[in-house]
């Protein structure tokens, strides 16, 4: 050995071996063998479900925003990470490894990094496939990257927690138990509607305080409040678990263990901060608002020029839903022809954002002067949203089947819209008003039985004015008139009818 070599300052153990160790861990990480399983479950669950929905960004990311992609990966990631963490114990080499110059904390962090790289590569590859295909299909709306980020940070947390479990509870049973406990916890947060469960990457369409909606990103920008808080929480959890890996005496000198303790404290502080932030969360129509970090600019509606169809009264939709305009216009046309031009009739039908925690298939209300009919359509919904006991009546069929068929739109959507519009024009207080309403509904092709699923306006604030059987009988004559004759009669008698001075006997 030459003098020259002896004079060279030896590089630190970490610097010398970090890259080599990472390459070794990366090649041998058990996460690699879990990737096909997780990808298969992802394909079965998230991919097939997402691709069955229409090509809107709001719909195609619905499952992602519910955390289903994360859930497909989480059990395998936690299990494989715990398996990797318990390797030294399992192979009976824990003591031999402990006396190597490389601090054990560095070794464990490298194992975590390698496992996380595999998990993230697989997750991003799978999610990227959905985004890529959706973009290629010319999806409308705005793509959101928040669920991808939350899922990625969540998987990093799963890997850290899994490795910590494998290291700190060395047993052959640790890996499956960690995977199953993690799944149980996630599944439990999925079926809980509490404030603090908002921190979970899972958001149930049935119980969450802010169930993801299909029209997200169309009328308002995505609210980043909750994803940001989730990232802080999950990131904190990751740091805390990684810090725990370096607290044991075998992990290195006092300095290293102090750094590990500081990392744990930092992680816990971040997670607790997120818990504090989410405690003030409130659900709005547009998503979860967390007052401490909320930016009021996010509440501004998106600017767009609606596209309008040629009907007796123009039907205007968000341009993202342009493909459905002919179907909706065709389905609404019989109704709009009946009321167009009457005093008090809406001058335009305008689509607005979905409202409420669990949005209905369709809502309608008349507002403003001149009156405008505001309708909210749940286009691109997911069928499971209607499977809860306290939720609105399930529609006939899948979103695609419903909104691509004028006949189905007329069956499922038109009755409620028609009842709202006709009530606005005619009223429902007197027997004559009810009879004329019944006549107009009949003339628009809406049967009495199709109104039976709606609650009555008198019994529920969300109810509609429903003419009874007597009103339908009384309005039969008016309904039987030709469209021109009916229009002429209505024009002549509408003022008296609205004033309540006309009796049902005066109807034709």
């Amino acid at each position, binding site marked *: 050995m030459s003098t020259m070599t002896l004079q060279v300052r030896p590089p630190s153990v970490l610097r010398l071996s970090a890259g080599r160790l990472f390459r070794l861990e990366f090649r041998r990480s058990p996460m690699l063998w879990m990737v096909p*399983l997780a990808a298969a479950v992802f394909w079965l669950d998230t991919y097939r479900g997402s691709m069955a929905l229409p090509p809107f960004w709001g719909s195609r990311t619905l499952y992602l925003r519910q955390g289903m992609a994360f859930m497909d990966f989480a059990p395998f990631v936690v299990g494989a990470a715990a398996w990797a963490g318990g390797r030294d114990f399992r192979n009976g080499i824990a003591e031999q490894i402990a006396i190597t110059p490389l601090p054990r904390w560095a070794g464990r962090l490298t194992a975590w990094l390698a496992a996380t790289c595999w998990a993230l590569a697989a997750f991003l590859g799978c999610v990227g496939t959905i985004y890529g295909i959706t973009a290629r299909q010319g999806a409308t709306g705005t793509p959101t990257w928040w669920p991808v980020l939350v899922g990625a940070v969540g998987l990093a947390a799963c890997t850290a927690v899994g490795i910590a479990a494998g290291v700190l509870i060395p047993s052959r049973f640790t890996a499956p138990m960690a995977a199953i406990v993690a799944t149980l916890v996630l599944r439990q947060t999925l079926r809980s509607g509490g404030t603090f469960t908002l921190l979970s990457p899972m958001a149930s369409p049935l119980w969450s305080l802010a169930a993801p909606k299909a029209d997200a990103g169309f009328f308002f920008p995505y609210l980043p409040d909750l994803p940001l808080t989730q990232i802080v929480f999950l990131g904190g959890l990751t740091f805390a678990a990684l810090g725990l890996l370096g607290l044991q005496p075998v992990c290195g000198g006092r300095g290293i263990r102090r750094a590990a303790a500081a990392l744990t404290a930092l992680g816990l502080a971040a997670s607790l901060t997120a818990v504090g932030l989410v405690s003030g969360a409130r659900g709005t129509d547009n998503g979860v608002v967390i007052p401490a970090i909320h930016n009021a600019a996010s509440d501004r509606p998106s600017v767009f020029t609606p596209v309008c169809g040629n009907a007796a009264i123009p039907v205007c939709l968000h341009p993202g839903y342009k493909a459905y305009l002919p179907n909706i216009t065709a389905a609404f046309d019989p109704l709009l022809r009946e009321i167009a031009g009457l005093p008090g009739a809406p001058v335009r039908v305008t689509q607005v954002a979905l409202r409420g925690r669990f949005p209905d298939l369709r809502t309608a209300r008349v507002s403003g002067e001149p009156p405008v009919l505001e309708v909210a359509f749940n286009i691109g919904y997911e069928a499971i949203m209607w499977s809860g006991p306290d939720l609105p009546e399930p529609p006939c069929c899948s979103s695609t089947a419903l909104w691509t068929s004028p006949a189905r739109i007329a069956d499922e959507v038109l009755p409620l819209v028609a009842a709202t519009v006709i009530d606005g024009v005619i009223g429902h207080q007197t027997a004559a008003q009810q009879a004329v309403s019944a006549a107009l509904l009949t003339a628009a092709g809406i049967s009495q039985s199709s109104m039976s699923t709606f609650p009555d306006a008198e019994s529920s604030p969300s109810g509609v004015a429903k003419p009874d059987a007597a009103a339908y009988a009384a309005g039969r004559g008016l309904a039987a008139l030709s469209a021109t004759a009916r229009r002429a009669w209505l024009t002549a008698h509408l003022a008296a009818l609205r004033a309540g001075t006309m009796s049902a006997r005066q109807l034709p």
Partner: protein
Amino acid sequence: MVSRRIPNAVTALAACALVLRLGLELDWIKGTGANAQQMLLLIETAAATVIAIAARNPFGESERAAGRWLPYLRLGSALAMTAIAATLLAAGSAAAQLPGGEAAAFRNMAGLTGIGLLSALLLGGGLAWVGPLAYAAVAEFTISAGWQTPWIWPGRPAHDVGAALCAGLAFALGAALIAVLGPRELNRG
């Protein structure tokens, strides 16, 4: 038995029974809906993985050379553990209603155990949990989606003969093969 960590496995099974009791008390498992079935399925999976992992022995080839009674030991161990798991889970769900009933819960656990034992055969005792976990992930989806196939027995009612046959076949195959061949010995990872 001790080398197979049977005492630890029984403790883990008791923990599964405790979680089952807790789930029933806290209404995590309530009614017969998909959520209740999925929560129960996870606990059954946990029990099955414990039984499958207990098939692993630390002696490897030297145990194989120990004598001709080894297959009986493996079979007896698998059957005894399954019986203990069934008893503990039944105790954990005493006086409560499981989705599908206790017979379906036992059928599901036995089938999952069979898959676990087959995984032990293919992947080694330590990784025996991978099979039941993957099967449970698929079964969770099929329960939500309402798929009906006897091969995904957790989604089928207790009286379904096809599901019982499939689960029974998986268990019989797993127990028989693990008895004859033993878990795969992997000297890595």
